[in-house]
């Protein structure tokens, strides 16, 4: 009555194909690492590592060229700094409001609208930053010669910063609001029963309880800010500049890669290899931040599930 087990080859083949699809992700990461490592090593055969990692002059086109990566790392961090200074208050403010104050109807309409911001192509945000934020907001409002003055400069770190900031507000708002909503109501009710005001509950009870999710969102946002290309390319400039001054043009790592790899360079030249060494720095930085963020998100999800 019970037939002997047929080997069911079809099932095994299907399982194999599916596993291959899964393994592709590992292959992709491996490919990224491999594509970065080769030319990077070639780069370091010519340029000493300490000059690269600690130099502050990034002038590849000069004779002799100087490859101090800190100049463009500073550019990236410059933009990221102003982006976060804008995005953190806006994002967290939005999150607290949506989670603790807004009626369900308001939340249902506002949340998707904020998500739209996340879906806007970066080239559009970059265009907005360069053609509106810079001339119509920063230049008129900047106090005269403060920090070197803003008027007249076609590219500003601050313009790129505000553009990137606008782009990442939804990341902070969305993940933080998720984390705050996940805080059990029992905690809030306990505080209210003791006579706490809404503000106190939001800041002293909910916020600390959701802290790991909030921090995760901020770390993820920094990672996105660091990895962003088009906005900095359009609004912040292509001048390597070792400074955190917002009203100066700078060049971010991503912008350098974008400009150089599309220019006329030959494979194997030092310029070509520099693209990969900068890419390695970028990849390592964002990888570290992403791992931290993923850990934190898992932590806050575990606590309440």
């Amino acid at each position, binding site marked *: 009555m019970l037939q*002997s087990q047929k080997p069911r080859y079809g099932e095994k083949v299907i399982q194999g194909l599916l596993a291959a699809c899964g393994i592709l992700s590992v292959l992709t990461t491996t490919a990224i690492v491999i594509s970065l490592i080769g030319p990077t090593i070639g780069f370091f055969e010519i340029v000493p590592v300490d000059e690269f990692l600690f130099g502050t002059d990034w002038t590849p086109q000069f004779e002799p060229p100087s490859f101090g990566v800190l100049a463009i790392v500073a550019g990236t961090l410059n933009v990221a700094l102003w982006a976060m200074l804008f995005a953190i208050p806006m994002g967290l403010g939005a999150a607290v409001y949506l989670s603790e104050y807004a009626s369900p109807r308001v939340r249902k309409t506002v949340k998707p609208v904020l998500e739209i911001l996340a879906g806007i192509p970066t080239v559009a945000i970059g265009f907005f930053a360069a053609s509106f934020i810079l001339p119509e907001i920063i230049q008129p409002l900047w106090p005269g010669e403060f920090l070197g003055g803003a008027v007249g400069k076609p590219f500003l770190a601050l313009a790129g910063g505000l553009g990137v900031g606008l782009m990442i507000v939804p990341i902070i708002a969305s993940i933080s609001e998720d984390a705050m909503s996940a805080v059990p109501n029992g905690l809030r009710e306990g505080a209210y029963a003791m006579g706490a005001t809404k503000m106190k509950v939001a800041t002293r009870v909910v916020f600390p309880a959701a802290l790991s999710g909030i921090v995760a969102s901020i770390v993820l946002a920094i990672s996105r800010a660091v990895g962003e290309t088009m906005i900095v390319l359009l609004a912040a400039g292509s001048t390597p500049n070792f400074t955190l001054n917002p009203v100066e043009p700078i060049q971010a790592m991503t912008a350098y890669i974008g400009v150089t790899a599309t220019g006329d360079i030959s494979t194997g030249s030092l310029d070509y290899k520099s693209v990969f060494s900068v890419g390695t720095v970028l990849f390592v930085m964002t990888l570290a931040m992403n791992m931290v963020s993923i850990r934190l998100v898992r932590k806050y999800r575990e606590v309440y599930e």
Partner: protein
Amino acid sequence: MTQDESRTGRETREAAAERAAIAVRPDEFQHRSAGSSKEKVFELKGVDVLYGGVAAVKGISMDIHRKDVTALIGPSGCGKSTLLRCLNRMNDLIPSAEVQGELLYHGEDLYGPQVDPVQVRKLIGMVFQKPNPFPKSIYDNVAFGPRILGRKDNLDATVENALRGAALWDEVKDRLDDNAFGLSGGQQQRLCIARCIAVEPDTILMDEPCSALDPISTGKIEDLMIELKEEFSIVIVTHNMQQAARVSDRTAFLMVELDADEDNRWGRLVEYDETEKVFTNPSDPRTEDYVSGKVG
């Protein structure tokens, strides 16, 4: 080792265990099919089920007969569902589950190395506690089984027969294309029974099929069970003793047993006999306590 030798060997070991644990006398009820001349569908001999090395049921020995309704009753956690799921190898889906002992189906080893669990489940169907119709039309729900079996000719007739067999045809014959989720709980459960019947199994296992339903639907399904046993062998797990008394021919009573330190617990078969006897004149005092409501 013959049956007698193993029995004595077990007795000596059991005698030692008895001093430390609550006693049970599995041997007396081993292969107790006195009075039944019907063919055996399942023969269980010393079946243990372990999850991750920890026993959930131990030493189950009983025979289940053809076209009987066999009820498994007992308090929560005594392993009734675990035992039921062994009969159609659904425990295979749990990676840490292990079945030991001998389990024969029509004389063949159900867990033999050459046996295909998929084939087993075509012969031994299952109805679950919470009705789980597929999110498809009523027709497609019932037709699913025959379709994957390749029995596609006369599908309409197969579906109609299955729905009639589940006492659902009259209620749904005009809306076979409606989504199954639109049916009431009781109707959904009868749909699941129809789905099961459509595959033409030889046995149907039911895991507390009425516990999620209202009394009227429950009554309909109990009547259905009595009809179904003309064609199928049925094994039902139930918490409802009146139900067991009403519909089943034979009843098995399981109970939880603790080991000496009281950290491990597993289910044991306490008594297995004709239903009337189990409910009116049980041999074991624990059975008496349970069926009279004193315990459990």
